[in-house]
Every structure is written in structure tokens, then in C-alpha cells.
């Protein structure tokens, strides 16, 4: 047994898979210890804030100002507001309203802005232009207002009684604040989701929940399949017939359809993460059962089983000590696969809206579901679904890798 464990860790595939899997598992266990608090707390008022460092504006104005003379300040400012797409859009608007195409040079910022400021009128409406498009141009116009100005911004205070403005200070074009000296800075490495939750703790808690669902579903499926397979294979006769009949029923009806029907009939309110895991477990034991059964059938006529019978051992003893160890390696591999397929099943169910009830816990499938409902994939909000896909892929990939590694150890004919 010890020998086998050593061999397992000499298989490079297994080791790589094991390291990836353990780091994901440890991340989901250790992160909540250091970052306490509800991972699902809503912090953003709005949907899909981009990844980045968020600085409180009042704090920024209040904190000490530093003057730095750096080159390219204006160019960078222009580049952020006026990218290639914006320039092309402006050109499209101008051409549509009768400016000769030859007169427009999108490379020359100053000339482009001049033409734009002379011709743009937010009231004009091109036939066939949607309202959203019209608003987009209005926003674009507002954002490039004063883009080329070299003046600073004046901070003024309002007199409560008269409403008159008094100038407090002027912030110049080349003034900076130190983020470290600002009291309220929030780093959102993966932005926020559609509800305005920080994606990072949410994703990590979702990984934890999904792994839990996978473990519960995998354990139930493996245990059920193992016990039924052992009994059907060893006892045989009518017991085998009944178990085989049930197994075939489950095979004929695709288990995912069964899963959808059961999940639907349980109802939205009763579906917690554990319930979903149990349902997945009870619909995916079939192949384990069949595989174990056929292995046991070939084992039960071996001489060592006959010898055990002749030594007066009971059926239970023979199954546990003479059959089980021989199928154990297979069962371990099946267990790993069941965990990863449990995670995938949960994701599939949740995307269809039949996963654990929303806003209670986050799972990888639910995060995909939320991102999909709020059209993150259409609007290009990649941070709402891409990290989730990566997490699912890494978990299943690492488990399959471990499985292949184990296969090489347990099945010497596959070794090179």
C-alpha cells in the first residue's frame, strides 16, 4: 500500500494535477480565514464595474497634492477619452451629416475636435439611428468637452443661504495625489458583477461551494454505485436482475434530463447547495455501478475468493476483504471523475436556472447564470464570466490529470 502511494507521487501527471487541485482547494479554504465578512455583500451601485483601483474622489481632492512635471500627460488624457473607435464614430457622424470625407483627418486631434465642435448638434437625428446611439454621441460630446484645455479645475463651495459659489482652490493639470496617502482606495482586481459584488471573494466562495457540491455528489454517487455494484456482482441471481434493471432505467433516461426534472419538481425555495448536490449524486451513480459490477463478476470466480469461501468466511467478509481491495483502485479513480462531473453538472443546472436558489450562496454555475442573464457576454464584460470559466476548467482539468496519472500507476500496461 505504501509502495503504491510512492508510485502515485512519482507520476508527473498526477503530481501536476494534484498541485493545481490542492492550490485551488487551499485557496478556497484559507482565503476566507484572512478575508472575513460576507463574500456576497453588495458594494457597487451599478452593474459590472471594470477591474481596477477605485479612489475616493473627495479623499483625492482633500489629500495632499503633488506637482509632477511629466511628459505625455495631455496625450494620455486624450488617448483614454478619444480612442480609435471614438474617432471613427465621430467621423461616421460627421460624414452622415454632410461633411466631405476628405476634410476629416482622424489623426489630427485638434482639427477633428474643431470640425466636431462646429458641426455637432445633439438635437440632430439621423434617420435610422437608435436612441441608444444618439445618447452615445451625446455622452461622447460631453466627455471630450475641454479636452484640449490647459486650465485647471476650480473647486468651489456653495453658500447655503445665497447659493453663491466661492472659489476654494484650483487643481492644475499636472497635479497628483499619492494613492497610499489616500484613506479610501478599493482595489477590485476582477471588478464587480451584475449585483455590484466584488468578484474576487465571490469567486473564491463560489469555488468552495462548487467543490463542496462536487464532493457530496461524488461521494453519494460513488458510494451508491460501489455498494450496488458489489452486491449485484457478487450475489448475482435475482438481486443482480433487479439492480441491473434499475441501472438500465437510469441509463436509458439521460441523467441530465432526470436532473432537470427532479430539480424543477423540488422547487426554487427548497433548492439549497446541498440539496442540489444530493440530487446530482443520486442521478450519476449508474456507470460506477455497472463498472464495479462487471469487475466483481470477473473477480468472484477467482481462486482466492474460493479459498476464502472454503475458509468459512461470510459473504460480507468476502466482499469487504477479498473483492473490495481489488476494485478499490478503480473506485478511487471513479470518485475523482465523479467529483469533477458533479461540479460540471451543477454548472449546467445553474446555467439553466435550476441550481441552488439565487442570492443565498454563490456557485460557479450560478455566477455563470448571473453573468448570462445580465448579458455580460454580449456587452463584453469579460471579468464577469471568464474567471469563472477558468476556475471550472482548472478544477476539472486537474482532476482528469490526476485520474490519468492514477491510471498509469494502477494499470501497468499503459506505462511507456
Amino acid at each position, binding site marked *: 500500500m505504501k509502495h503504491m502511494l510512492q508510485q502515485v507521487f512519482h507520476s508527473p501527471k498526477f503530481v501536476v494535477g494534484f498541485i493545481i487541485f490542492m492550490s485551488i482547494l487551499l485557496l478556497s479554504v484559507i482565503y476566507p480565514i484572512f478575508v472575513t465578512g460576507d463574500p456576497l455583500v453588495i458594494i457597487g451601485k451599478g452593474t459590472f464595474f471594470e477591474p481596477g483601483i477605485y479612489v475616493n474622489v473627495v479623499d483625492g481632492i482633500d489629500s495632499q497634492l503633488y506637482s509632477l512635471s511629466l511628459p505625455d500627460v495631455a496625450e494620455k488624457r486624450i488617448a483614454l477619452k478619444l480612442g480609435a473607435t471614438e474617432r471613427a464614430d465621430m467621423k461616421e457622424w460627421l460624414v452622415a451629416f454632410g461633411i466631405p470625407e476628405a476634410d476629416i483627418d482622424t489623426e489630427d486631434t485638434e482639427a477633428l475636435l474643431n470640425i466636431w465642435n462646429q458641426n455637432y448638434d445633439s438635437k440632430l437625428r439621423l434617420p435610422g439611428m437608435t436612441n441608444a446611439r444618439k445618447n452615445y454621441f451625446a455622452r461622447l460630446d460631453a466627455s471630450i468637452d475641454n479636452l484640449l484645455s490647459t486650465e485647471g479645475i476650480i473647486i468651489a463651495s456653495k453658500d447655503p443661504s445665497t447659493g453663491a459659489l466661492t472659489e476654494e482652490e484650483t487643481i492644475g493639470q499636472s497635479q497628483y495625489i499619492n494613492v497610499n496617502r489616500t484613506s479610501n482606495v478599493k482595489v477590485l482586481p476582477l471588478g464587480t458583477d451584475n449585483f455590484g459584488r466584488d468578484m474576487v471573494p465571490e469567486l473564491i466562495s463560489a469555488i468552495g461551494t462548487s467543490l463542496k457540491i462536487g464532493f457530496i455528489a461524488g461521494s453519494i454517487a460513488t458510494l451508491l454505485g460501489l455498494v450496488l455494484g458489489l452486491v449485484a456482482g457478487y450475489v448475482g441471481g435475482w438481486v443482480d436482475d433487479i439492480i441491473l434493471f434499475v441501472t438500465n432505467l437510469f441509463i436509458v433516461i439521460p441523467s441530465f434530463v432526470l436532473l432537470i426534472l427532479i430539480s424543477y419538481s423540488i422547487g426554487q425555495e427548497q433548492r439549497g447547495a446541498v440539496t442540489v448536490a444530493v440530487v446530482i449524486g443520486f442521478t450519476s451513480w449508474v456507470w460506477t455501478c455497472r463498472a464495479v459490477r462487471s469487475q466483481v463478476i470477473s473477480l468472484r470466480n*477467482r*481462486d*482466492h475468493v*474460493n*479459498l*476464502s*469461501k*472454503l*475458509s*468459512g*468466511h*461470510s*459473504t460480507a467478509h468476502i466482499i469487504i*476483504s*477479498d473483492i473490495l*481491495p*481489488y476494485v478499490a483502485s478503480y473506485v478511487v479513480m471513479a470518485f475523482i471523475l465523479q467529483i469533477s462531473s458533479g461540479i460540471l453538472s451543477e454548472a449546467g443546472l445553474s446555467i439553466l436556472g435550476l441550481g441552488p436558489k439565487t442570492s443565498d450562496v454563490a456557485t460557479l454555475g450560478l455566477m455563470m447564470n448571473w453573468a448570462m442573464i445580465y448579458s455580460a457576454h454580449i456587452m463584453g464584460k469579460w471579468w464577469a464570466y471568464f474567471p469563472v470559466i477558468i476556475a471550472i476548467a482548472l478544477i476539472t482539468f486537474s482532476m482528469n490529470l490526476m485520474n490519468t496519472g492514477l491510471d498509469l500507476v494502477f494499470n501497468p500496461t499503459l506505462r511507456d
Partner: protein
Amino acid sequence: MNDANKSCLKGVGLTKIFGLGKQRCLAVDHVDFDFKEGEIISIVGESGSGKTTLAKMLLGLISITEGDIYFEGVKRDISSQRKKKEYWKNIQAIFQDPYSSYNIFRKIDTVLLDCLVMRGQKDLPAEEKNRLITEACSFVNLKYEELTNKYPFELSGGQMQRLMIARVFLLKPRVLLADEPTSMIDACSRATILDMLMDLRRETGMTIVFITHDIGLAYYVSDSVYIMEHGKLIESGSADEVILNPKQAYTQRLINDVPKIHEEWDLSTVDAR
């Protein structure tokens, strides 16, 4: 020495059919026999002639399609687990392949300790258990100290098969079914194992049913010989009777197939051709 006429194991019209319908296969076909107590009986036949199936039926490891087995004159009853256990106290076996006869996940001494449990000596003091097992091991020229805490794959095939005999020695059944016990063993260990079986018979007076495809071996060890072909018993009688005066052509062929190392090889006929 023994009452030569007392029946030990008797079969009447034993039949075994595997499978159903078109795929049915008649493995053993209405076999009748009467094994006398204390004899060494050989069942000889080619591969696939139904010897091992017959042995498994006698052991009660597979069901009997038709026919009855009488043990010491009483019809065998193995309808329950308890009765089976009782029956297996009287009949034991040694299998063909020592390498697959052991559970590779269990230590070897558990096999011998199981025998003591089977004999109802579970509660003996440890020294007494040790003494019994050591005695059984020394009977087959093994040292018990060297076996403790070892797994089956750490032993040679000959050692494993000898351990099997030690197990039988501990259990002291009335009948021993030895299913080709020497076919996987090298020639030197083969003689040792055969001698041990003979010793076992001498010491305990048990009936030994020796199943083999080697008629020379059968002649060497047995008192009476049964020849099987295609599931049927075609010839039986005392060893001398069957082998020196075979009545069936099949028996004659089996005898001719035995390599004769002591005879001079007649090479002149080859040259002449």
C-alpha cells in the same frame, strides 16, 4: 489400514450445464463415481474435459444442474451458509495456480489463522496457536517465523503451494480435492509437493482426489484412476488396471502422450526415412 470399502464421496448422475438456450454448454455429463475412504483417486483428462468443474461441484462452489452427491453415505446438504461451513470442514481444496489462490492484500499468516477460527480454536492462547501453526509449517518445510508479516507476492510459487498444504494439514478435512496442484510448479518442487500429499494421506488417512492432465503423475500417486473425456467418465478402475490395460482408445492416447525419458529414442527410423 483403512476400511477399503467404505464410501467417502459418491456422485450419482452429476451434470453441469453452463448458460442457457443455444449457448448452453454441457460441462459435466451424468458422471457417476464412488470414492473410497483413504484412497488417492486421480481424475485424468485433457483441458476442457470438465475435471475442474467436477471438482467445484464437489466442493459446493458452483450449483449442480442435476444429480446428487453423497458424503459418507449421507446426501449432501449445503442449503444454508451454516451447513456449507460444516461441509467445508470435511472437504478442502488446493487450487491449480498458487499465485492467484491468495488475496494479495492480506498477510500470509492470516490464511493459517483463519484455519484455526474454522476449527473453532479462535480462543486458544497465543502460544498454543503459534505451536499449532509452527507444526503445520514444519510439516511442509516452511518456517513460520519467516512467513509472519509477509505478503503473498514475497513467496515463490512452490512456497505458496506448500503453504496451501499446511493449511490443509491444519484443517484435517476428510477429503482433499487437489486440482492440478503441481501444474504451475517447477519439476523439483513438484516431487516435493506430491510427496507431501502422500505424507498427508499417511498421517491423517484423508481421501485425496487428485486432478491432473498428466497420466504419468496419476499412475505415480494414485490407487484408482478415473478418465474423463468431454464431460463424461469413460473409464475407471485401479491405477494398474486402467494404465496397464486401457480399454478406451482415449486412455491409450493419453498414455502414449507421456514423454518417456528412460526409453532409448529410436533414431534409426528417422534416419531411414
